[in-house]
């Protein structure tokens, strides 16, 4: 699942990785009446969400952080399918497409501005050079974290509530794992934001002075 940043925006937000979720949604009449399959899907979704969030915490590549956050959000969608909330799963897929495309395109803008450097540890202090990109990543991250009344909130909060409201073992497991993942999501999104825009610069001074918004 690697490619140039605009391609990443396309495959992560809309077409490739979410196709599995769509396939599950589309085929639910086939497996939907088997309790075992439904249980496996719910547990798989919840653990994927948790796994993606924890791996995303420790990545140093800007695109990998966003890619693992996609992985985590896909876990949310698969879990929602597993507890029977098909509408909610499609809604999360739809919302996720918007803010993940925004995040990937903004990441592309950052990577381009500092001459193809993707390492978070060599970035910093780009807020002066790239105010529009900073605003975009801020809005995308806030939506991803599920800040109330932004896009991600309505679907993510719905999934977590339905997890609690299903009153079975996979629902309770999902509720715990998804709440923890939501916390981790907030942490790695803010970490990315601080490392790229607000922290002191760790990169080449000449590169930093020439950095600008893409034309």
């Amino acid at each position, binding site marked *: 699942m690697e490619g140039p940043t605009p391609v990443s925006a396309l495959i992560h937000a809309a077409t490739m990785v979410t196709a599995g979720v769509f396939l599950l949604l589309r085929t639910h009449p086939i497996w939907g009446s088997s309790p075992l399959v439904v249980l496996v899907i719910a547990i798989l979704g919840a653990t994927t969400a948790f796994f993606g969030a924890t791996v995303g915490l420790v990545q140093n590549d800007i695109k990998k952080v966003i890619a693992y956050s996609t992985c985590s959000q896909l876990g949310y969608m698969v879990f929602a399918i597993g507890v*029977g909330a098909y509408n909610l799963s499609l809604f999360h897929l739809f919302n996720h497409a918007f*803010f993940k495309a925004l995040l990937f395109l903004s990441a592309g803008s950052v990577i381009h501005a500092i001459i193809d450097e993707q390492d978070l540890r060599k970035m910093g202090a780009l807020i002066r050079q790239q105010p529009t990109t900073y605003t975009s990543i801020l809005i995308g991250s806030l939506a991803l974290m599920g800040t109330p009344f932004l896009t991600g909130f309505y679907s993510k909060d719905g999934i977590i509530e339905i997890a609690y409201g299903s009153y079975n073992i996979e629902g309770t497991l999902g509720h715990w794992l998804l709440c923890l993942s939501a916390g981790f999501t907030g942490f790695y999104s803010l970490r990315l934001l601080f490392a790229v825009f607000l922290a002191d610069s760790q990169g080449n001074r000449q590169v930093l002075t020439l950095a600008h918004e893409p*034309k």
Partner: protein
Amino acid sequence: MTLPLILLAILSLYVGFLMKDMVIGFGSPFVVFGGNELHHSIESEFIPVWIK
């Protein structure tokens, strides 16, 4: 490059609010491939307030 960023930023802000009633609204006729989630979506309205 700025234009798509601004467009997606505005959509990221508002799409959830605008589409909520249509996609997951209570009593909405929007049903995904014949799925039925009515049971859970009503149940989740009655969970304890401190969890909500």
